[in-house]
């Protein structure tokens, strides 16, 4: 029986054309881009070409792209890189004026429902006593309000990090509006040195790249995280967009690669694949068609699932990724639903994190004001390029039976 894959937010398969483009870089074209000889230069050319394609996609300069090992590294580099650079700047300034100023810890604003790659970076810096942090809460619809971010800004705020599309509930955050608001704040505060006394804006756009505007000027962002394996590219490669002139403290040291911002021999095949994946994605007309098609399928899935009694959609329906469905079924446990789906050859995911190490209910759903018992029965379906109407039909055929079966087994009536 064919597998029905509805977990595209976890990862996507590698597009055939992407794989084809990558393969020579494992064998014939195996050179190190830093080598002077022909093989090396061949690899260098391939990396440069991928960088150009991606720069076109993001509407940025090639030097503004730092290739990394993926979304998590990019998020870590953005948060730690900015903060540690700020700390050394503040120290230098204090040394110059020879006064020890109180309360000069940099302040970060992020949201409570960020990806853990951001959240844990911020929490660690907080525990190390290096920063102050404010965690903005989303509204009941799973949207971070611009006014709440603005209200959290303090004199010592140096970084705002808000994700573009939430990975669990697919809600789309007002990145452009937050970016513009921060720009206004920066204009107000008459900055002399562009790397001190201003607020930087980072967005984790990993879940957004497939469907939403990625023009960094349109978005008014200074830093942006992307990952290849969410857009039909390979795992193990991502990037951090870093606006020209914005300084960060390098985290991986020991080489001059990536404009001296990330050491280590380039993952040439991975970067080549990333470039190809972005090139395919950059075919705008294709994206729009794809987006509408997927959105229709998603709506069918949401409407069908909501017919099951005692179910509700998590997160705004209006401001939502066209690929995301996240629904809670009261009195049915998420992992049990997943296991039953798996027996029907349907791959989905649970927001309840109950499958792995953590037994805590989803921090995303809790942050929106849901009760733990409402979180435990949440299921996420994420659609992709290959999703068909027949697949959605199959899910809608089996889900009511699964939920009914589990509810019949439950002592809670």
């Amino acid at each position, binding site marked *: 029986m064919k597998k029905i894959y509805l977990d595209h937010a976890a990862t996507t398969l590698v597009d055939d054309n992407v794989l084809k483009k990558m393969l020579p870089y494992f064998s014939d074209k195996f050179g190190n881009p830093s080598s002077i000889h022909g093989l090396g230069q061949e690899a260098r050319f391939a990396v440069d070409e991928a960088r150009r394609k991606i720069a076109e996609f993001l509407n940025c300069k090639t030097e503004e792209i730092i290739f990394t090992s993926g979304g998590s590294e990019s998020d870590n580099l953005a948060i730690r890189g900015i903060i540690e650079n700020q700390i050394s700047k503040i120290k230098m300034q204090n040394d110059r004026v020879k006064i020890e100023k109180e309360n000069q810890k940099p302040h970060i604003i992020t949201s409570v429902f960020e990806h853990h790659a951001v959240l844990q970076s911020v929490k660690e810096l907080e525990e190390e006593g290096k920063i102050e942090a404010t965690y903005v809460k989303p509204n009941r619809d799973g949207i971070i309000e611009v006014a709440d971010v603005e209200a959290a800004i303090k004199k010592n705020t140096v970084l705002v990090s808000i994700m573009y599309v939430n990975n669990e509930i697919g809600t789309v955050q007002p990145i452009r509006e937050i970016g513009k608001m921060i720009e206004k704040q920066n204009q107000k505060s008459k900055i002399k040195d562009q790397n001190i006394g201003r607020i930087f804006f980072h967005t984790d756009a990993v879940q957004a790249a497939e469907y939403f505007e990625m023009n960094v000027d349109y978005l008014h962002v200074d830093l942006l995280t992307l990952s290849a394996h969410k857009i039909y590219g390979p795992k193990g490669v991502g990037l951090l967009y870093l606006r020209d002139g914005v300084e960060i403290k390098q985290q991986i040291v020991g080489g001059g690669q990536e404009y001296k911002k990330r050491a280590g021999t380039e993952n040439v095949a991975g970067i080549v694949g990333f470039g190809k994946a972005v090139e395919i994605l950059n075919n705008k007309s294709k994206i729009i068609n794809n987006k509408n098609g997927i959105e229709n399928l998603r709506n069918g899935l949401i409407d069908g699932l909501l017919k099951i009694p005692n179910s509700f959609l998590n997160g705004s329906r209006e401001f939502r990724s066209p690929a995301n469905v996240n629904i809670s079924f009261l009195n049915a*446990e998420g992992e*049990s639903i997943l*296991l039953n789906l798996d027996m029907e050859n349907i791959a989905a995911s649970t927001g309840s994190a109950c499958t792995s190490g953590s*037994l805590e209910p989803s921090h995303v759903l809790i942050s929106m004001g849901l009760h*733990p018992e409402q979180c435990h029965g949440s299921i996420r379906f994420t659609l992709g390029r290959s999703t068909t109407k027949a697949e959605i039909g199959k899910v809608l055929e089996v889900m009511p039976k699964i939920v009914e079966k589990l509810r019949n087994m*439950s*002592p809670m009536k």
Partner: protein
Amino acid sequence: MENLYSEKIMEHFRNPRNLGEIKGADGVGTVGNPNCGDVMRIFIKVVSRKLVSGKPEEYISDIKFQTLGCGAAIASSSIATELVKGKSLEEALKLTSKQIAAEMGKFPPAKYHCSILAEEGVRKAIKDYRKKIKQLKILKK
């Protein structure tokens, strides 16, 4: 999912033993809570039998469970009920989470609490039965 759970757990998950409720059960034990995601309820029927020595002994003649929870919670309830069905109350009270976990086979360490819940469920049902008997005796007096 085979890498997450043993085949035995999956088998019990697919075909749970002793699933359901006993109307007019002699003892009922409910453990866990919806907040943490797992709720188990164990129903028992208790009957007295005569041992070879002539001494009477109370044993679990029937047992059923209802569980709201993950795969491990459902499988551990099913396995626990199988382990104590037909056993005397004294023996059933000796059932430990360790035993249940060993029967379950492979599962993520974080799921160990499921076997604890199953042990507690059985104990609580037996306690409930004993409490009821005590009250009955007092009433009769």
